[in-house]
């Protein structure tokens, strides 16, 4: 079994030094031409109080080639979506098409200054407006802000809108009584965080043995009359569609609350079902998940917030809206021409700051604009049919994996999964092999690990989301790898427990890293010299 995996050859320098440790006094990556003005004494130009006196201690002195080789070498340690399957559940790590990147680099967009007047930036605003139209159609929710820079940011924007709506509807006294946000026990951790930050206290709704929201518990919690809303992920984090979603929305609405949907799992719904039609009031999307903009490494992301007409007045400003002249029906746009000739006298779109009920701005300028270009490219290249097919393929792929792994791994819920499927380590723990070990061993087989130990309600959870980006061949490879690990867990548990074996660094001590973190590198050479 061991011989099937070949160890990687040693790197030219397996112990890559930090850029600080490569520093050599006087080494530079540039050579400036002689000054063509008279040289001045620095102190005569800048007050002494503002000048550094530490001789830039700690700033590395390196040449251009030092820097290039350092970072290129480290980049080869990375694993990315361009190398292979990245089945991180609830993260939708789909392939990001090169075309999206090309569109985002069009100089007219990439070089546009964010303070350009709206009349002179009509093309750029058109991209935002058109993307909003598409997202409105996809979600069934017409009010949209593209400002939020990430999923949790969009989520908090949504919760702030609920808060503002209730404040306006119930008045100060009435609103003060509605401070409870209901959140299922399977939710993403950001949900209670957003609720707390917006002044709500959280009550947890139980999941049924089927893995769905417990309706009786929901009714009981709603009967207390303090409910501001419900935050629900659909499909939920177990990969199961909340089939009672319409009833759930009705119960919350009857109790005077609003329904927020966490759109992290929209990759199971796009082109097939719309949250607005289910009764959802406000949702966030993740362009960096569902709409194929880059994901990982900290973004930048884009977490649009979409809501009903009723909630629209509370959206962040500025809104990008059609000019009144035009909405009266006098120019090309109303006749359906998508790209009218520029008319700076009568610009088609304008920025609307006059929204007195708005929660205000949530991000500088217009949000992460480059993500909007990429998402629009994704939507337009797919078209209506393509988006639906992508959704169907994402669900089919997850079900293929669910079927392929059932004989070797414990699957805690029987309902057919949507775009992701959860397994546990229950069968492997008998030999002392746990989810973490299985995930580490998967690296040896060339796959990025799945999401582990989430959702929290599943002990030893392994949450697998293949997305639509992989074909059957790679799905089979993944299933074979997982089944092989299951056999190893029985025949040679030590091999799994000590994985990974093919990486440049072996199993890390995560507990020590968290308990005694080394957060800062200190210059050793100088300490020695001192």
């Amino acid at each position, binding site marked *: 079994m061991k011989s099937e995996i070949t160890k990687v050859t040693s790197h030219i320098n397996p112990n890559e030094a930090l850029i600080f440790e490569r520093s050599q006094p006087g080494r530079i990556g540039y050579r400036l031409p002689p000054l063509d003005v008279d040289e001045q004494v620095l102190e005569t130009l800048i007050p002494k109080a503002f000048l550094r006196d530490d001789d830039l201690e700690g700033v590395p002195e390196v040449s251009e080639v030092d820097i290039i080789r350092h970072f290129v070498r480290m980049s080869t340690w990375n694993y990315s979506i361009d190398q292979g399957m990245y089945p991180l559940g609830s993260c939708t790590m789909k392939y990001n098409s090169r075309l999206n990147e090309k569109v985002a680099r069009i100089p007219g967009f990439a070089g546009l200054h964010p303070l350009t007047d709206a009349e002179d930036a009509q093309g750029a605003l058109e991209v935002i407006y058109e993307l909003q139209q598409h997202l409105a159609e996809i979600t069934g929710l017409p009010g949209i802000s593209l400002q939020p820079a990430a999923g949790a940011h969009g989520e908090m924007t949504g919760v702030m809108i609920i808060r503002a709506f209730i404040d306006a509807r119930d008045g100060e006294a009435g609103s003060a009584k509605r401070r409870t946000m209901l959140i299922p026990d399977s939710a993403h*951790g950001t949900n209670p965080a957003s609720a707390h930050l917006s002044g709500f206290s959280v009550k947890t709704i139980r999941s049924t043995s089927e893995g769905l929201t417990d309706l009786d518990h929901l009714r009981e919690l709603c009967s207390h009359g303090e409910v501001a809303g419900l935050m629900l992920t659909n499909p939920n984090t177990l990969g199961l569609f909340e089939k009672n979603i319409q009833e759930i929305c009705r119960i919350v609405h009857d109790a005077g609350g609003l329904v927020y949907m966490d759109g992290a799992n929209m990759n199971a719904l796009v082109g097939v079902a719309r949250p607005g039609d289910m009764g959802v009031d406000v949702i966030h999307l993740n362009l960096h998940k569902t709409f194929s903009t880059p994901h990982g490494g900290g973004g930048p992301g884009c977490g649009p917030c979409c809501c009903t007409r009723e909630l629209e007045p509370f959206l962040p400003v500025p809104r990008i809206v059609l000019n009144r002249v035009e909405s009266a029906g006098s120019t090309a746009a109303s006749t359906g021409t998508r790209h009218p000739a520029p008319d700076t006298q009568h610009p088609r779109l304008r920025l609307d700051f006059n929204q007195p009920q708005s929660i205000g701005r949530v991000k500088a300028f217009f949000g992460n604009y480059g993500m909007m270009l990429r998402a629009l490219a994704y939507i337009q290249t797919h078209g209506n049919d393509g988006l639906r097919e992508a959704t169907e393929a994402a669900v089919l792929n997850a079900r293929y994996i669910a079927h392929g792994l059932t004989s070797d791994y414990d699957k805690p819920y029987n309902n057919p999964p949507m775009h992701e499927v959860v397994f546990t380590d*229950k069968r492997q723990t008998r030999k002392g092999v746990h989810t*973490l070990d299985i995930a580490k061993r998967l690296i040896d087989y060339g796959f990025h690990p799945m999401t*582990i*130990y*989430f959702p*929290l309600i599943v*002990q030893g959870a392994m949450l697998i989301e293949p997305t639509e980006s992989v074909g059957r061949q790679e799905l089979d490879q993944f299933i074979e790898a997982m089944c092989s690990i299951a056999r190893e867990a029985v025949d040679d548990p030590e091999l799994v427990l000590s994985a990974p074996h093919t990486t440049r660094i072996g199993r890390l001590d*995560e*507990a020590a890293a*968290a*308990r005694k973190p080394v957060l800062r590198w200190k210059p050793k050479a100088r300490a020695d010299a001192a």
Partner: protein
Amino acid sequence: MANIPEDLHYSKDHEWVRVDGNIAVVGITDYAQDSLGDVVYVELPKAGEKFAANESFGSVESVKAVSEVFSPVSGEIAEVNDSLTDEPEKMNTDPYGDGWMIRVKMSAPGEVDSLLTAAEYEDFTKGDTE
């Protein structure tokens, strides 16, 4: 199998209670620490804070997850185990001893009777793993 001392009371949230007069010493069970994995950070309340039974009094962060901990009894915090801040691993190595979390001055000592006995808790954890 998990260690479940006979002389303690247990909650369904996997906390244990040792009664010492009107003081309840509270920690998490061996079963809980084993499920959580290596504990890396503990968030504790301050002495003098009051909690109702089943109310969250802090959280435990392990390499796997952050979990809330719930007070099995009502009362006022008399003392917290500050040493867990620097040595959270005590919760793994000695959950019923040095890994204790809080001492609560009970306002309703009778609540202890509604907690699980060692035998009941053992049955409960078996059900939990089914």
